[in-house]
């Protein structure tokens, strides 16, 4: 037996469920929330039904209005239904505003039904309408917060992954390392690059390191300084740095900006840098017999 607090609304969602559902569907279509490109009518109806079922189950038990996060145990059925729908909709690519309006569109049909229901007791009307609004707003806020939290988590995780991926030091050959730089090179990352590189030099006893900037989007004065500093630190350790991936455009920019590479070796491609590295550590590349004949 439903608690008296939501008795009127409970009556509507149980007795008039079918009408309410079709009204809600119409409202969504009219409000442009429907997204026929993402969901078929059947799927949408199923989602609306799921929400109404959750709402019904929660209202049957609820004695108090839900807190902001729907955390109270008695609102669990509604929360679970909402989470299911959120997951399904956001996986298909529905946006945040859309997800919030998805819930809010229930307000009008429910209010209309309610007005009919309590026509003979007008003193109840405003109080019940307020309850509906508060309830649906809570649901919409919950949906929004939940979605934002989830996205924050994803962004955080991706940032960590990116940081790890962004500074891999690879051993190309005995005593030869390379660090392919991709993306942007700000101060924080330059520091990280330097640290990883210097530690790898100790670990691999590397004499030559190739810093490849083919994938660096913008090379300005600051990036140039970071690169030269890294090269200096490598030299202080007793190694030698070759900066590769200098395109004609980058070379021109660096000269125009007055970035003086000094004694640091630079090469246009990683291929020529590797050849130079082999020369420095005393290896030779010799064409095999088979390909000589070819």
């Amino acid at each position, binding site marked *: 037996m439903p608690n008296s607090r939501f008795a009127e609304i409970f009556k509507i969602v149980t007795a008039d469920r079918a009408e309410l559902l079709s009204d809600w569907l119409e409202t969504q279509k009219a409000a442009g929330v429907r997204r026929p490109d993402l969901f078929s009518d059947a799927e949408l109806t199923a989602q609306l039904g799921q929400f109404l079922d959750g709402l019904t189950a929660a209202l049957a038990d609820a004695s108090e209005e839900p807190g902001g996060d729907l955390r109270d145990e008695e609102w669990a059925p509604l929360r679970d239904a909402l989470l299911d729908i959120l997951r399904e909709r956001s996986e298909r690519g529905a946006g945040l505003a859309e997800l919030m309006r998805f819930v809010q569109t229930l307000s009008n049909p429910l209010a209309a039904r309610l007005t009919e229901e309590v026509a003979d007791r007008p003193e109840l009307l405003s109080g019940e309408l307020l309850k509906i609004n508060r309830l649906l707003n809570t649901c919409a806020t919950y949906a929004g917060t939940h979605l934002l939290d989830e996205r924050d988590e994803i962004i955080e995780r991706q940032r960590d992954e990116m940081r790890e991926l962004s500074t891999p030091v690879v051993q190309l050959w005995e005593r030869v390392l390379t660090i392919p730089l991709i993306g942007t090179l700000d101060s924080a990352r330059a520091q990280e690059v330097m640290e990883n590189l210097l530690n790898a030099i100790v670990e691999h006893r590397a004499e030559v390191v190739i810093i490849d900037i083919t994938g660096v989007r913008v090379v300005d004065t600051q990036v140039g300084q970071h690169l030269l500093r890294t090269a200096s630190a490598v030299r202080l350790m007793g*190694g030698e740095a070759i900066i590769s991936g200098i395109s004609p455009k980058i070379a021109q920019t660096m000269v125009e900006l007055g970035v003086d590479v000094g004694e640091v070796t630079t090469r246009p491609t990683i291929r020529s840098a590797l050849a130079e590295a082999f020369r420095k550590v005393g290896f030779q590349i010799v064409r095999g017999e088979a390909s000589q004949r070819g």
Partner: protein
Amino acid sequence: MADTISIYLVEQVLLVTIPDNITDTEIVDLLENLSERIVGEAARGVVIDIASLEIVDTFVGRVLAQLSSVAGMLGARTYVVGMRPAVAMTLVELDMDLPGCRMALSLTQALRELRRDGLA
């Protein structure tokens, strides 16, 4: 002269290991002792091992550069070896990249280069 830094002669190369707790006076003494030894032994190479130094300040950095220059004038090529990554990072931060010094990863590498050029 008991607590000066030991300088060993191996083949024609003078090997110097700088201890972690070196004082400014000691390192200045080193500059003097080393230059006399270079002339005395007719050394063609000097290897200064700084692997135990956790901090290289501007003073030590400057003396290292002076050591290299002085040795160079006396006909000996100097290698500074074994700098730690953290020290290297601090020095470039301070804009002290020891332009006059030859650096090597290890004693082995320094000796190999000296031999290659007929100095050891």
